[in-house]
């Protein structure tokens, strides 16, 4: 019912609230910067291509300014990335260990992405006068490719955490029936022979088939969650749930073996069968995630560039010799912003939403707020009927489909309802951003000099950032109670030595302060003249 404290549900309803909050701050600081690493190179190379085509030196000047921007943000991004990486290792070491053991490949391939980004971004900046314009443009494209390649790797890991390729959501939109997700595993024959089929059946494990060297099984995610928790807490087979499904002989023979060693054999074999080099890229919604994240980066970058030039125009006088250049740059960035937000709001956003509906029905139910415990935001705005009318077709491709009901989901599998508000505020801000983008583009192309439009442009980067943050927040908060959907929960991924709350709060405040000071420095850089 209304009155339910959504923040408490999010922070206290799942383990490690403080650690999750700190991770959110750290990763948001990194993502804040990263969007420019991904977005600015695209704008810079397009501006340079316009210069090559037209010979207009203003485009070259704009391209150089943008390059100077992304050289700096790349360095900052490398630093915040290192900090985030260490943060993840320190707070969630079991998750980190599992990722390093089983899905290391995209992380490993990021090594080359980092080197590619670093080398070509700085070549683009430092070596401009040593290469022909066309070669320089190609170097710029390689710099952008390095950044996007890096994003494609890390997002495959995140997509795996959201929806692993071997985890099947159990929601039927034609009937509205929900059941916990199943985990598909290839169990090596040697281990399978140690398990009793009747006991397996009794706990809901289904044998789907057998092949050379293994047996394919579908295990309820609740059982997998328990086994993972037991394995990482150091239990032996005899002390674990596995003993209950083992044959009496096997239970005695391998009772003293660490459960983690047995599970490792099963998971490693499954990963090998599925393909070590490709398993994360087969995660549900991976391509949609990648495109949506890149779209967000370009959107934020475009609005930021537009906002910066709007500030420069507001700061300059009509006689300023640069004013024509500023307006040209504003027109360029506004056009980019409009195209980016339009794509985000339609094709890319739709693809992402459909992927969530299909692969994470529990998160989808929370996003739509289909619960009697809260007042839905669309309902409170009088838009509930409209949303309920179009959502089935949008999400499942059929007007007769049923949206999952949050209250029908087992409480152990429910994400926090806060994501409903985050999601719909994001949608609202996205629509607002689209309207602002349209207004900016029209006014920039018409050469409007209205100050209020320039001020609106100047604040638009903040709106773009909040929108992007809410989108990422919806994704990450909606992953709860899982660390890896269907496989590992938050408690299991947590360090055995959780820091005291005051240390978590101090680090979070410190990182937020660093970001605030960084923004202040950027503001001074943009605003003050030599």
């Amino acid at each position: 019912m209304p009155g339910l404290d959504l923040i408490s549900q999010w922070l206290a309803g799942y383990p490690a609230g403080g650690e999750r909050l700190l991770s959110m701050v750290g990763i948001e600081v990194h993502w804040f910067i990263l969007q420019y690493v991904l977005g600015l190179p695209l704008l810079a190379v397009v501006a340079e291509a316009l210069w090559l085509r037209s010979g207009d030196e203003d485009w070259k000047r704009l391209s150089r300014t943008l390059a100077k921007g992304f050289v700096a943000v790349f360095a900052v991004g490398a630093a915040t990335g290192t900090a985030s990486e260490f943060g993840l290792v320190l707070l969630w070491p079991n998750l980190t260990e599992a990722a390093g053991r089983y899905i290391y490949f995209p992380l490993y391939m990021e090594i080359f992405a980092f080197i590619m980004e670093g080398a070509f971004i700085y070549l683009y900046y430092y070596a401009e006068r040593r290469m022909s314009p066309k070669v320089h443009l190609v170097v710029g494209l390689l710099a952008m490719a390095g950044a996007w390649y890096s994003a494609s790797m890390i997002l495959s890991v995140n997509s795996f955490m959201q929806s692993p390729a071997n985890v099947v959501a159990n929601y039927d939109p034609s009937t509205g029936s929900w059941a916990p997700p199943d985990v598909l595993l290839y169990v090596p024959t040697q281990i399978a022979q140690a398990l009793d089929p009747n006991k397996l059946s009794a706990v809901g494990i289904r044998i789907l088939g057998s092949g050379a060297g293994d047996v394919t099984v579908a295990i309820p995610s609740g059982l997998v969650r328990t086994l993972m928790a037991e394995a990482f807490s150091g239990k032996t087979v005899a002390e674990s749930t596995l003993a209950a499904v083992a044959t009496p002989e096997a239970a005695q023979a391998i009772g003293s073996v660490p459960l983690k060693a047995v599970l490792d054999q099963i998971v490693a074999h499954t990963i090998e069968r599925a393909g070590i080099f490709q398993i994360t890229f087969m995660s549900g919604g991976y391509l949609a995630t990648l495109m949506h994240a890149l779209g967000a980066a370009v959107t934020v970058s475009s609005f930021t560039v537009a906002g910066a030039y709007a500030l420069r125009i507001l700061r300059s006088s009509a006689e300023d010799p640069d004013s024509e250049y500023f307006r040209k740059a504003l027109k360029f960035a506004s056009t980019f912003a409009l195209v980016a937000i339009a794509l985000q709001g339609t094709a890319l956003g739709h693809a992402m939403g459909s992927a969530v509906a299909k692969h994470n029905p529990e998160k989808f139910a929370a996003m739509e707020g289909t619960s009697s415990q809260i007042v839905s935001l669309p309902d409170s705005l009088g838009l509930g009927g409209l949303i309920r009318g179009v959502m089935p077709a949008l999400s499942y491709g059929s007007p007769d489909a049923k949206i999952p009901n949050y209250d029908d989901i087992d409480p152990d599998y429910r994400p926090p309802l806060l994501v409903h508000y985050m999601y719909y505020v994001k949608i609202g801000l996205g629509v607002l951003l689209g309207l602002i983008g349209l207004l900016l583009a029209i006014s920039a192309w018409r050469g409007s000099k209205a100050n209020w439009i320039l001020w609106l442009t100047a604040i638009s980067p903040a709106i773009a950032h909040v929108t992007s943050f809410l989108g990422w927040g919806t994704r990450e908060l909606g992953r709860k109670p899982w660390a890896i959907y269907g496989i590992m929960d938050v408690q299991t991924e947590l360090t055995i030595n959780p820091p005291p709350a005051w240390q978590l709060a101090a680090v979070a405040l410190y990182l937020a302060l660093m970001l605030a000071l960084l923004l202040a420095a950027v503001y001074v850089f943009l605003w003050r003249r030599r």
Partner: protein
Amino acid sequence: MPGIPLPVEFLIPFVFGVHIALVNLDIGLSTAIPLMKWTGEKKGDGFLVERSKTLMRYYAGTYAIAGVFGTAFTVALLSFYPQFIGLAGHLTWVPFGLAIMAIALRFLSIVGYWYLWDKISSGLHAAIGAAMALTGFLVPLGFRAVFAFLNSPEGLHLEPKPYLDVAEALANPSFAPLYLKSVVGGLAVGALVLASAYAWRLTEVEGEARRRYAELASTAAKYGAIAVVIMVPLGVWYLAGLWWTTPFKFANVIGSLMGMAAQSDYSWLFILKMALVAVQLAAAAYLLRRPLLAGGAVDPSALRWAKVAGPAALATVVSGELLNMFSQLPYFVARPDLAAALPEPIVQAISAENVNSLANLPELYWITAAMLVPLLAAVAALFYFMVKGEGEGG
């Protein structure tokens, strides 16, 4: 090394070597740049201020590439040794947490110093520069505490669950000399690389500019020499710390030269490092005795020594770090004598032979070679352009 695949032996030390060379340069440059600007402003020396600004431009590049290779190092470790990284995560919240906070302050000060150049008061800019230099000394504090822990796990307690007593860890006899060596080593590298760079530069200019570059090179060599001399007792102190806490590692570093039995004898690397130190000292001594310019003409011998000093300093740092890393193999914690007292999962996690079988694949090494070779060519091109590129005024 038996049990450790050759590519693992190569890849991890390689990315770490590049990282550590650039980090040392990073410490030196981030100290030199604000000092040069401050001194230039105080003396009304525009040449010095301009050199400081040009250095800052290059410094941003080396800083980012250092960060890139640092991340590459940890990712490579994670891929090949996930259990070790997992264990480190459980134990090292405080030392790595301090490092994270210092890194955050560092990037902020670097960005502030670069972008606010000429946009804020000189005093405030100098204060940001001081923060930039200071954070260069702070970042290694946490990292070196962990490295000392890897020498000998002082402060590790197993009951009621494995945890690290930070006070005991910081009292590790190998921590203080290791940390001080890192900072002073960075200053030595920065100064001597600058001496070499300005020696290269002075041959490309004439007149007053040549005189100024010669002056800068000599000054940098002088400070470099002081730092290298300080490194000698610190090195002895560190060796004493190793002898005290981990005779196993001490034997691998130098013990075989003293007749001790070494399991992984890397004394040849120690000898190489000492030879490189001797080159630096010889170069600095020569430059202190003989000026680069005599009557407006360049002294070719002095020029050669100046050009050699910087690369020798970088090579010294890399050889020293690799010696430190290799001399504890096949263990990540150089105390094999403690194995019997540790639980089996921890013993497994700290064994360098316990390589992730899913990553230890020929296909992965082929991919690595195919990706790394062209990218390293690009990095080489980048450094070529940075050194030879657009001139100091660019």
